[in-house]
């Protein structure tokens, strides 16, 4: 029998607000443990939460970007459970009446087709602290750092519309792209600012009923999500094929072992006893505010990609890569405001620029060559001051010194030789010095043509205009 997977993802995104969701503490990452806390986020007796409006705004942004309905009336709820890094013994979250619901995102599959993935809901909640099990610091004890406690999160719950680990991966990439475009989350899965849990089941192809699902947690990178889902789908299929049954349970992905293992049943036997949070009044969202937020949204990735294809006549592939992040797309657009060859600019940004970013492990915002400088370099190619090959030398020099390309060309005498007489003289000289090769060429061994080009280039230290060199060589050899 052939099986298909049914996957739904629950993605938590940490919002980039300056302060926590229910108190004024800073959200800066990496501070001294428990230094960014106050009586409110420590859950001291008698404290009350006060909602950070900025967090609501960020959540609405994501709701709008994913075509959700924004609830005019929604409320917070308490999710009750005991854990040392949860100071109040409950997490303030949303249950009934979430802020955003019933939306979708379009993902792009490898074959270039698009698929629409439903978003069931997006709600706001507070993060918990961190339990630290460090034998050196604490021996057998557990330490608790509550700096993260109360940092705002949105939870994005997808419909069970994903059918493969690859689709799940594409969906996650799209979500990351959206939150970073919106500037509401840094999208870093390894550092935990984006977290993903998956609900997975399998069923025979053609069936419309859902199989028994398991929940997979602890996948802390995009690749791990793909690997864990592949593992779990195969496990379920094998189980069914061998006559077994899938048990509804929670599994923890172990990236080192490459397998997902069940949590101890004690850990998952939770009845969260949700009920409306009485310390917060319901959120009443004015339509005028939603409208204002809608107007403030940046151009979103898919729209920008389409515009790149239309406006700059780029292939879908180029447009997709250039719009992968908002900053890269901004960089490209800054280049092409000063350099009119859009495709040349695209080739350079996708090629040379991304190569250096990867090598140096830096972001485009940290890239030493400004868009204007790169545009000037490309313009030197376009006006034939330098060849593409020399341009790469100049580019390396720009990376190292930060100097302007024209200055480098001048200082190093790299300007292209386009004077016909000069090149002709060199060609004649090369042919004279290599009579044997000339004979070979004329007797039909045209491969040696490249040799002549190489000799001319060497004589000009690569500066001769290659087109002109070809043309003159052919001319002279024909004589």
């Amino acid at each position, binding site marked *: 029998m052939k099986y298909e997977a049914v996957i739904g993802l629950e993605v938590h995104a940490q919002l980039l607000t300056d302060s926590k969701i229910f108190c004024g503490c800073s959200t800066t990452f990496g501070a001294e443990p428990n230094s960014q806390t106050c*009586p409110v986020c*420590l*859950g*001291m*007796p*008698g*404290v*009350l*939460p*006060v*909602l950070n409006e900025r967090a609501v705004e960020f959540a609405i942004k994501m709701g709008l970007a994913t075509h959700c309905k924004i609830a005019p009336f929604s409320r917070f709820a*308490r999710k*009750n459970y*005991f854990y*040392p890094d949860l*100071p*109040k*013994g*409950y997490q303030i979250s949303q249950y009934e009446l979430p802020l955003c619901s019933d939306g979708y995102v379009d993902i792009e599959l490898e074959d270039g087709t698009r698929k629409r993935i439903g978003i069931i809901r997006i709600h706001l909640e507070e993060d918990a602290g961190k339990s630290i099990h460090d034998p050196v610091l604490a021996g057998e004890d*557990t330490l*608790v750092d509550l700096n993260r406690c109360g940092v705002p999160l949105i939870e994005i719950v997808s419909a069970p519309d994903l059918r493969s680990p690859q689709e799940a991966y594409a969906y996650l990439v799209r979500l990351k792209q959206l939150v970073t475009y919106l500037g509401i989350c840094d999208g870093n899965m390894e550092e935990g600012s984006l977290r993903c849990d998956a609900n997975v089941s399998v069923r025979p192809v053609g069936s419309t009923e859902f199989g028994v699902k398991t929940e997979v947690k602890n996948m802390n990178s995009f690749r791990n999500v793909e690997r864990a889902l592949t593992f779990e789908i195969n496990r379920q299929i094998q189980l069914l094929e061998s006559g077994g049954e899938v048990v509804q349970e929670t599994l923890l992905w172990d990236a080192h072992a490459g397998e997902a293992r069940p949590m101890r049943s004690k850990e998952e036997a939770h*009845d969260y*006893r*949700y*009920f409306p949070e*009485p*310390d*917060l*009044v319901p959120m009443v969202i004015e339509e005028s505010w939603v409208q204002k937020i809608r107007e403030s949204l940046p151009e979103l990735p898919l729209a920008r990609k389409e515009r790149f294809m239309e406006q700059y006549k780029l292939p879908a592939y180029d447009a997709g890569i250039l719009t992968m992040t908002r900053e890269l797309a901004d960089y490209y657009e800054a280049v092409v405001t000063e350099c009119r060859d859009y495709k040349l600019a695209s080739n350079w940004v996708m090629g040379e620029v991304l190569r250096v970013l990867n090598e140096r492990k830096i972001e485009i915002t940290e890239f030493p060559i400004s868009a204007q400088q790169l545009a000037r370099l490309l313009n030197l190619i376009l006006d034939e001051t330098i060849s593409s090959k020399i341009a790469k030398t100049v580019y390396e020099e720009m990376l190292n010194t930060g100097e302007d390309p024209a200055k480098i060309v001048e200082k190093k005498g790299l300007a292209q030789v386009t004077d016909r007489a000069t090149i002709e003289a060199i060609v004649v000289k090369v042919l004279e010095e290599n009579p044997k090769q000339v004979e070979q060429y004329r007797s039909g061994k045209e491969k040696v043509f490249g040799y002549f080009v190489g000799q001319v280039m060497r004589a000009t230290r690569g500066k001769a205009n290659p087109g002109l060199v070809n043309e003159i060589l052919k001319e002279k050899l024909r004589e």
Partner: protein
Amino acid sequence: MDSARVRHQQYVEGKFRLADAVEDYLERIEAHKDLNAFIQVYADEARERARELDARRERGESLGDLAGLIIAVKDNIVIKDHLTTCASHILENFVSPYHATVVEKILQADGLIIGKTNLDEFAMGSSTENSYFGATRNPVDPERVPGGSSGGSAVAIAAGMADLALGSDTGGSIRQPAAFCGVVGLKPTYGRVSRYGLVAYASSLDQIGPFGRTVEDVALFTRIIAGADERDSTTVPTEVPDYLQELQRDPRDLTIGIPQEYFQEGLDGEIRTAIFQVIDRLKEEGFTLKEIRLPLTDYAIATYYIVATAEASSNLARYDGVRYGFRAEGVEDLQEMYFRTRSEGFGTEVKRRIMLGTYVLSAGYYEAYYKKAQQVRRMIKDEFDAAFREVDILITPTTPTPAFRLGEKLDDPLQMYLSDIYTVTVNLAGICALNLPIARTQQGLPIGMQLMAGMFRESDLFRLGHFIERQLTPSTQQVP
């Protein structure tokens, strides 16, 4: 003993030194030690602050509205760098790192806080017997309970150990002890007084409120502690009237309702008679009175004990031994730490309510209990709204009986819960209500009358209360 209003006036006029007054009050606290009204007395601090205030007065500085007054605070309201125990073993050693908003307001108004008063553990109880620090006794008859949960604060006022006191009222915890001890106590409208710094029992019902010897005193104190607070989102930015000014207005424009459901079986005969005597006198004074029906009153206790315990089960989850308070010794693992800390740290009644609340929120029971209770609560609120479209004030007894004997109901939680039968509806509806001492039983026990008004109509309660106190029942103002 003079009222707080009079004492403040006298102090401002230089008629006494606060340093002397503090000694007098400390002596009275010492003399009444057997009543066990206080959990902590800040003797040295009070002397220090009295000297400061006296010095400021001598320098001719302007003084706040509470200058010269000695105030007691229920020990579930936090004061920075002081213990807040909630009368519980689990918080026995808890020192608060911050001030409650009401405490800041008292200090800004130049009030002097003399100590923290006893209560039923986490404000759960109606007799102040459920305290880790022992029961508080009623000064009128030390064999009887002072009511609860704010028993210590009511006793502090009744026995002259403070001029004003703060309590908290979740289902009657200010009004019922005020009735048992013969003092005035107000449960303000939900959202009138900031709850920031009040250790939560049931967040949607809790409200901090004042005790005083007269309606004027309670009005004066309410004016200080009321108002919106950006740290409590459930407070409401409705303007706080000058209640003392309001008091001066003749209350005969107020229409009074008598809900018959509050005068049925179970009401003590002497209390009924005393209340109807006042009602008759009001008629003679020309007030308009109406019979009102509130048939949902029957469901109030059941609704209250579902909503309150559900919220309590969540609010008290933070006492887990991890960050502060009591932690059980010699535990093997996390589970055991939780179990033993909470089993040993909480008293019986608190554990009973946590279990009840956990049950009504559990999967499979939520719809039948918590959700249903919320629906009934909504209906009770609607019923009151309808009543207050017809009348301005409702008059009821505060309690079905006068103060009962210590231990009398301790083994029968249901009987204990029924002592709040006339008070819980006010919290469920979010409205305000005042206890007014109107008479004594033949045995000399205080009888309280409850005045209820719609949301943010505290002024109406004070106007009518002040009128009844001055014109109709002046003899009840004596203090032992």
